[in-house]
């Protein structure tokens, strides 16, 4: 069951309420998201992206992985 951009955005918004979030993609399986969040401050990319995957609560590429691919760009909000 693919995920729509708004669905992804709302999950991300829950975890990063003050972030600038843009989600693109229309097939619901190969999507892209860019997140500029203050929660990322002082964290390296791996740590930042782990926070994003945690926010997606297991929707990513698991056995029930609706979301096969999510290209991620993360940046700390200065």
């Amino acid at each position: 069951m693919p995920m729509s951009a708004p669905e992804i955005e709302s999950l991300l918004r829950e975890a990063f309420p003050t972030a600038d979030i843009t989600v693109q993609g229309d097939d619901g399986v190969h999507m892209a998201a860019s997140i500029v969040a203050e929660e990322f401050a002082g964290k390296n990319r791996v740590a930042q992206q782990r926070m994003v995957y945690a926010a997606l609560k297991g929707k990513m590429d698991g056995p029930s992985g609706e979301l096969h691919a999510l290209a991620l760009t993360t940046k700390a909000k200065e």
Partner: protein
Amino acid sequence: MTDTNAQIQETVDNNDVVLFMKGTASMPQCGFSSRVAGVLNYMGVKFADVNVLADDAIRQGIKDFSDWPTIPQLYVKGEFVGGCDIITEMTLSGELDTLFDENGVAYDKDAAAKIREANG
């Protein structure tokens, strides 16, 4: 520690550079895996490729091992470096070159520079 975990630990300990990927270095079977394998091949980096499609225990085990839900996954000197997005960013920013330099991993500096020029 499960034997899958031990197997993964042993692989990353015994190889300077390891890429857990879908398919093999010469026959990648996923765009993201193909991109990272392509960068490593182009930069002449010697790496062990582990085809997670050939072993479901590894395919799931590696995600638990690194607490990272996607494939490919690159390891340098036993340390998880990142997936396709991060390796692409690090290649273009030069951080991958620095990481290899710091860990004594041989690679073709001109090839790395060419990648950056091509994606300038």
